[in-house]
């Protein structure tokens, strides 16, 4: 809707070929400043639509139960209360969930940085038999939707006896095809001469990789870190199928279980929204730290 408005609204020019007269040019300037204002109004109102839900989320987390339903739109609670947070930390396993999420996220992120770069380097530089086949299968793997793999993954986890353990939760997430793909692309953009130089100086393949190439790959590595942090922190399905004991519940799973009303009666919106807001903080922090980078990486990734 806004798109059509904009595209149609961009300076209406006179029919092709004719030169605009001076008077139309003046009126056009007037019109374009009006258009500027309209543009900003549109931009700001869309921004409000996109941000307002999150403000409501935080505000409601500090409201009392009756107020949350009675006045769902005010951004300032009439009575401030931290009851929701207290309940979350005292009467639920919220702290266990957070810890599990943190463990999984840290291990998965480290693992992906290591394995993705190693595999990406192998595919970009080392000449071994079947390299093309491996790369083709990588693409194929990327094409398989993860939801389709839920049952297959469970079967393997169950079969090799790592169900309901950190190993079972983490291992399937340790390598991701997309990450290998990104790293491969990056390594290919580094000139080979640098590595040849290091080889001449007597460094082995792994040493070249570790001390010469990897430091150069910092931008790509940061992309991997951002993607895997966000991916594993927000992952739900994988944890549903790989573990069941309460002590292995992650934040996503735990907060999802809150919606079925485990902690007492009523709708308890402040409690649920407090939990949702808290679990958003790490990814939000990550986002704001690397904001410039996130915007730029996606720009780079399409260029290729």
């Amino acid at each position, binding site marked *: 809707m806004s798109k059509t408005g904009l*595209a149609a609204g961009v300076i209406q020019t006179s029919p092709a070929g004719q030169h605009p007269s001076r008077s139309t040019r003046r009126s056009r300037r007037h019109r374009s400043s009006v258009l500027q204002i309209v543009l900003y109004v549109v931009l700001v109102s869309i921004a409000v639509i996109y941000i307002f839900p999150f403000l409501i989320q935080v505000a409601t987390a500090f409201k009392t139960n009756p107020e949350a339903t009675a006045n769902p739109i005010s951004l300032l609670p009439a009575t401030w209360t931290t009851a929701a947070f207290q309940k979350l930390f005292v009467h639920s396993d919220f702290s266990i969930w957070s810890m599990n999420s943190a463990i999984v996220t840290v291990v998965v992120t480290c693992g992906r940085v290591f394995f993705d770069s190693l595999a990406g380097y192998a595919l970009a530089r080392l000449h071994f038999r079947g390299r093309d086949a491996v790369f083709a299968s990588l693409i194929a793997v990327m094409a398989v939707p993860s939801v389709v793999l839920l*049952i297959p993954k469970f*079967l393997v986890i169950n079969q090799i006896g790592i169900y309901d353990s950190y190993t079972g939760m983490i291992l399937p997430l340790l390598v991701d095809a997309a990450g290998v793909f990104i790293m491969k692309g990056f390594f290919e953009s580094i000139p080979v001469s640098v590595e040849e130089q290091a080889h001449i100086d007597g460094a082995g393949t792994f040493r070249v990789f570790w001390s010469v190439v990897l430091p150069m790959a910092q931008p790509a590595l940061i992309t991997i870190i951002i993607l895997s942090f966000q991916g594993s922190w927000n992952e739900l399905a994988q944890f549903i199928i790989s573990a069941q004991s309460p002590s292995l519940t992650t934040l996503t799973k735990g907060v999802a279980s809150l919606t079925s009303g485990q902690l007492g009666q009523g709708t308890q919106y402040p409690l649920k929204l407090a939990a949702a807001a808290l679990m958003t903080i790490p990814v939000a922090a990550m986002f704001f730290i690397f904001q410039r980078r996130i915007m730029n990486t996606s720009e780079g990734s399409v260029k290729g």
Partner: protein
Amino acid sequence: MLILLGLFLVIPVLMALWVSFSDWGGRGSPFSAGVKFVGATNYVSVLSGGGLAEENFGQALRNNAWYTILVVPIQTAVALGLAILVNRAILRGRGFFRTAYYFPSVTSSVAITVLWLFLFSSTGTVNKVLSWVGIHGPNWFNDPNGIITNFLGLLGVRSGPAFLTQNTTLGVSWWSWLGGPSVAMTAFIIMAIFTTSGTFMLLFIAALQNLGGEITEAAMVDGANGWQRFWGITLPQLRPTLFTVLTLGLIGCWQVFDQIYTGTQGAPDNTTLTPAYLSYTAAFNNQQWGQGAAIAFILFVIIVLFTLFQRWALKERAPSKRRMRPYLSAVARGSVGAAGAEEPRNAKETTR
């Protein structure tokens, strides 16, 4: 690393393929002696069994099809619109707007679903806003009525013609197939657009920045207006990105799982059931592992087919004469002002 990939991707798929042809009940190993090969029984019961399994699957397919039909075009249009708005040369606070539009994309689907359950509850924020303009909002997540059915209801059409209500496909009546997504599903549709448009906006911004302004400038010199420039010049150049966004959107849409698991578990009246979620419940909750695996494979085939279809539909092919005309003349006139190459001049002659 390759072992890991193999272990968790190739072998699992083969194992699941076996399970989808077996009567494994979830106890012990699916390869133990007690598990029998049952042929295509699982597939048959899902696709034409006439029982609950078929009806659920049909319902899930119906829901997800409507979800996809609405989400993919709208989110692509919104993302492109946002990208064009934000990508203007003179714009104060560009960084702020980009951040604002992208932020919903970083949050987890669980957190956003919890928020949505509140916003769209009967006494929630959305209904409050609707009440300001005199609309009595529905009880979103508890309303199983299709939105097209509702619209027809407003026009006085209460029940469909017999040939639509009598005939069924996959256990779901044609009337129900055509009824549109339920009000509950609509809330999820709005959520999907809200959370994904930011990501795709970034892709479009990147593509727009790589376009370079020469051709657009040439068209401006020719006096092509904004609308013509958008359809004739910008959009064709964005084709590769458009393909990426549509494909990613399509694949994502058929994988709706987290939201349903967190939010409605398929309720009300199975109208938010999706194949992905159905596959999960069939296997993990009802111990119908064969059926669950069969649904997953059918889903996979659906996704592959849609991707292939899209690839075919968006393939570069010679545009029709009617669509060629404004483009050619734009190029011709543009080159007179800018470069003055031979070819476009010929094009100009042929069009005149």
